[in-house]
């Protein structure tokens, strides 16, 4: 399975990819993941590649190949949509974060992104992950809330996801993250 996580630096793409990596490792699969560290993390656009299969060569997903694009921010999902294979799933947070170029009025945040994306050959699933995270008790858990939506859209058993989350998320944040995951998993979107 090839998953792209598209996000703004600081939204928790790294934690989400670590959970996915553990999930795959627990299944006995080969795993490769490619992350962004350093300069690009300071509120910049961030793309994380997660690949698992019997054998994985490149740590990078080729454009037109990802099974899922998991977007923690919608513009970032749109930016990296070329990675999704035709007919693939775009699971996106409805949260919008203005880039600096928009804040200072040089560029505009694209209008009607969801409608535009829906025109493409893909299945789009939107979720207010920030709202779910707030409901769970911590805004920072939006990444795991959206992962709940992803979990519901795979063949992998829910228990396996919960195990991976428990193994990766530090203990003091486990409860809130598991609540966020459940809210995402049970969401009616």
């Amino acid at each position, binding site marked *: 399975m090839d998953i792209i996580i598209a996000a*703004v*630096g*600081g939204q928790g793409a790294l934690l989400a990819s670590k959970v996915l*990596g553990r999930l795959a*490792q627990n299944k006995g699969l*080969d*795993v*490769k*993941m*490619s*992350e*962004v*560290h*350093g*300069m*690009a993390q*300071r*509120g*910049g*656009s961030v793309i994380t590649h997660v690949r698992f299969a019997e054998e*994985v*060569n*490149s*740590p*990078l997903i*080729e*454009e*037109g*190949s990802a099974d899922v694009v998991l977007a923690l921010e919608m*513009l*970032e999902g*749109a*930016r990296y*949509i*070329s*990675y*999704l*294979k*035709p007919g693939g799933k775009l699971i996106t947070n409805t949260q919008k*974060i*203005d*880039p*600096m*170029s*928009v*804040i*200072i*009025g*040089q*560029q*505009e*945040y*694209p209008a009607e992104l969801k409608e*535009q*994306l829906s025109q*493409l*050959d*893909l299945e789009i699933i939107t979720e207010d992950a*920030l709202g779910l995270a707030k409901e769970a008790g911590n*805004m920072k858990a939006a990444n795991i809330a959206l992962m709940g939506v992803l979990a519901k859209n795979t063949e992998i058993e829910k228990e396996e996801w919960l195990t991976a989350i428990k193994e990766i998320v530090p203990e003091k944040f486990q409860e809130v993250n598991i609540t966020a995951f459940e809210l995402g998993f049970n969401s009616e979107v």
Partner: protein
Amino acid sequence: MRKLMLGNEAIARGAYEAGATVATAYPGTPSTEITENVARYEEIDTEWSVNEKVALEVGIGSSIAGARTLVSMKHVGLNVAADPLMSVSYPGVNAGLVIAVADDPSQHSSQNEQDTRYYGRFGKIPVLEPADSQECKDFVKKAFKLSEDFDTPVIVRINTRISHSRGLVELEDRIDFELKEYDQNPNKYIVAPAVAKKRRVVAEERLAKLKEFAEDSELNQVEYDKKDVGIITSGVAYHHSKEVFEDASFLKLGLSYPLPQKMIEDFVNQCETVYVIEELEPIFEEQIKSWGLEVIGKDVLPTIGELNPAIIREAVLGNTKEKLELEQEFPIRPAVLCPGCHHRGVFYILKKLKLHVSGDIGCYTLGAFPPLQAMDTCICMGASVGMAFGFEKARGKEFAKKSVAVIGDSTFWHTGVNGLIDLVYNQGNTTVIILDNSTTAMTGHQENPSTGYNVKGGKAPNISFEKLGKSIGIERVRTIDAYEIDEVERIVKEETATEEPSLIITKKPCVLHKRADVINDPLNIEGDLCTGCKKCLDIGCPAISFTGETVKINETLCVGCELCTEMCNFDAIKKGAN
């Protein structure tokens, strides 16, 4: 046991398993996590050195004194360490000396795309290129052995994609490497011409032996499949190529300098068409073509940027996968100064005062971009101080009154301090501002000589900028709270006006750091007090945006630093409003 590890983490593990007892480094993306991980092994004496030159010098001393030693840095760091690197090549080593160098193709976090393999040829030093996390660990262990067997430092060259990718790694036990005897051998280690001329010959003989070794080394692997297409490659480009050519033959070079000429000749002769797929410079390709062999390389593949399966597919096969596209240009989202960053107010003032700012390398380089745009130049680590003095030399004292150097705390210790001594000695007037956020922030919060802590988290001497400035003869040394922007403005005006060198330290811990003291509840816009004048947008805080009529504050981003409240003329921004 298998563990999912970053390439950098696996490099550290390799040093641990090889029995290394000393590790040194200066942080730099993408190499930083090597040393953060090495530091977790209590058996390894680890340090954040002040710069890469010192890191390598400590490493050379430690090797001669008998300890297996790992020195780590990013590619441009090797330029700083180039003097000890080139100079230790002829004398060689005692215990294994491995230098892990991480290149940054596509310049994700760097000023250039230099290819470290050139340093191998330049210094006659063997270069190993692992392709994934498992090989990072394995190759570091092999590199220690190679270093001792051939009496040479060894470079392990990785890159961003290997450093920051995770893969499964089979863990093994640490070997019990006994400290070697101290090698007291002036005829080897004193590089005065009389000795060095003899070592020059030894280095050449060593290279000849390494070439023989390369022919049989398991570091280089031939995988024959169909022979109509052969691929010669190395590093992560091997795995990218595997995605594209499922049944081609491969020659994977793990030892990328010196090359196994006979092995390559044999491979090229057996395959019908041979492509050389190497990231960055055509280093293999030029050598291979110089032997009279026909291969295809940069004729079709790019020299600029990192490779990936799609680039290789299009370049070699001329096709691309079907992909989804939106016919729209998206607003760019480059990195920005974080909400609450204390550099923001300082740059706002520097811009307001219309100063020429000689900048440096760190988070604060982001002050160069809109809307702050308060930096004219940034060339390399530590250059800000010398360059500002250069402005003064060229244009005189009056220009010095209209310009400043800005440099971060860690960058100052790295190589800025030399510039400051030069400035005082040569009687300049330039004002130098140290943006002291008490951490090496851009690379992910590493300790440095003025944080009071060492790489292992223990207490360390906290070296004082103020005392240093005074001791080298700067009379005007001022320390201010970076959040007090009125005070910053007053002091910068005063110090730039004087005809002597000044040192200003703007102090506040990085807002993301665990020792930060400024995280508060988010602010909010109170009722209808906002007039939409947009003045608060001038500080370029990512938490504030304009809705069309008024501004709003993003509660997930705001850390309550209150810098924006100083911008607002209508008292519209409040704590806990709404």
